[in-house]
């Protein structure tokens, strides 16, 4: 049986401390150093900063404020509005990505000429830099010369060029579209791996019971893809919550506050208002929330399997 990214890792019982453990320590040391320096340290330092009223516009007036920053952040309605927008965006993005990923994986799971080429081409959105993705979609959504306007106009769906990114009711959806386009390949691959791991006997058994394609799909494929769905949903949610690049390139949080999500909120607070204390507090809250969320989701989905 082929192991894949979802197989539980086999754990062997630990032996007494001996030669094996010493060399293991040595081998793992560089990794431990890196992880400490780039993971544990920032978390600790970030927490430390968040206890101070550190504003770089007033470098001479830094004071220790205990948890004031956290109180201020959590009682700011703008913060919670940003959270709300992040949730909206993430739900849109994750659902679309998962559904599209499933459909494309179903297609690529079949055997037909040209499948290899399609799979290869599918990697292109995944490979391009997010900057290029942002610029590309910004150009497509452009209200004066963009391709979206042009195509809809030529096909007769609209009578005159419309404003897309500047329309507050559409902003999040449009950004989500750009985000999904780039994320779908990875989701597809993960689901495809899961599909390929489904033993053929299950399908054979279902056919014997007289199931058609749709019933096979519903009763064999979907349940067996449980772990894959879990992985895709968790991963994509993590990616959507933290996403920054498209918000910077396409709308800078606008128009008005329409796309002012939590990542943007932290950026503005830290690097535009230069309030590092509150920015660090926000970042810390976000990190804790993400950790908590992923733990909860994994436990829930893990129990279902």
């Amino acid at each position: 049986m082929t192991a894949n990214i979802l197989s539980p890792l086999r754990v062997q019982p630990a032996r007494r401390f001996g030669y094996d453990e010493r060399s293991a320590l040595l081998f793992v040391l560089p990794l431990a150093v890196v992880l400490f320096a780039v993971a544990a340290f920032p978390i600790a330092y970030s927490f430390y900063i968040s206890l101070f009223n550190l504003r770089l516009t007033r470098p001479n007036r830094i004071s220790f404020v205990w948890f004031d920053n956290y109180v201020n952040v959590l009682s700011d309605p703008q913060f919670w509005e940003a959270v709300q927008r992040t949730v909206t965006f993430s739900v849109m993005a994750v659902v679309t990505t998962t559904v599209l990923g499933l459909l494309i994986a179903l297609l690529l799971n079949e055997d037909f000429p040209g499948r290899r080429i399609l799979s290869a081409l599918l990697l292109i959105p995944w490979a391009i830099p997010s900057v290029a993705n942002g610029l590309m979609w910004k150009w497509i959504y452009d209200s004066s010369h963009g391709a979206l306007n042009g195509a809809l106009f030529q096909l007769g769906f609209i009578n005159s060029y419309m404003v897309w990114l500047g329309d507050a009711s559409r902003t999040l959806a449009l950004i989500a579209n750009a985000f999904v386009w780039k994320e779908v390949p990875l989701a597809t691959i993960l689901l495809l791996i899961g599909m390929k791991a489904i033993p053929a006997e299950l399908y054979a058994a279902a056919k014997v019971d007289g199931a058609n394609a749709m019933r096979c799909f519903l009763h064999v494929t979907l349940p067996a893809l449980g772990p894959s769905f879990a992985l895709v949903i968790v991963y994509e949610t993590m990616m959507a919550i933290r996403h920054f690049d498209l918000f910077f390139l396409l709308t800078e949080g606008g128009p008005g506050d329409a796309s002012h999500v939590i990542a943007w909120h932290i950026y503005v607070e830290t690097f535009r208002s230069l309030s590092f204390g509150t920015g660090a507090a926000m970042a810390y809250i976000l990190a804790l929330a993400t950790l908590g969320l992923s733990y909860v989701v994994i436990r829930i989905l893990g129990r279902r399997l």
Partner: protein
Amino acid sequence: MSAQARFSRTALLAISSILLLLYVLAPIAWLVSSSFQSEREIVSKPPHWLPQEPTIGNFAAIFTSHERSVTYETRRATDPASGGFVPSTAKNLLPSLRNSFIVACTVVVLNLLIGLPAGYAVAKIRFRGRQASIYAILATRVIPDIALVVPFFLFIRNLGLLDTLASLIVTYLAITVPFSVFILINYFESLPDELDKAARVDGCSRWQTMTKIFLPLVTPSIVAVILFAFLVSWNEFLLALMFTQTPQSQTLPIVIASFTSDFTISFSFINAAGVLAILPPVILALIFERYIVAGLTVGAVKG
């Protein structure tokens, strides 16, 4: 399968394939098409889907845009009024390509140096805290990048290391090493323990076991790590935005982002720069496509 069922299957596959092709390629095709259009043509309504007067002027501007000396006499040469406008930061494109390349390659090498021994150890050597360390490794990636930026920025600034490639390389390790190690652990895991035991019987030390026996066998995952670490470093935007100030250390995504809001916007040039930016990663991804899946699946690479 009946002939009718076969036909509808074929039709369904064909339509789906075409739709998928459109979905994936249409935006890219438009990007490429726009890059070959002149500024005058690119603002047509409705747009010219294929350039009617294709020009390589935009690309030429990228490669020939260097510091030209400007005197009182020549100062109007690139006036928007006289046409042929190129953003003033265009000359930073090629140096930024170099920066991106240096950073990406260094990160890849470091990933392998750190990841291979660690992957081997965690997969093959039984030691206490093994399971915990695997989860810990994954957990570090749950923290959003923006939460890393704030402390890193202050720390790197206080060290005086802002605006250096070194700061980028070090922070990129944070976002690439965990997943690389995870890929390698998975792959090492899938190789039989007997190899390990046989090597030990032959008198190899752990290091020799790893380098002589296992390394040649884990090539697909090494390629996956190279590809993944290179792409992440090449494409990374937020950290580079925060840690680089001047062209001496700016990477490609930063310079490209700077074009969008230059005082006089040139759409065609931006599209050309975009094409330049996507070429290296896309080519890499297409060449090593099979290793991506192999890196995530540790079984035999089938068709």
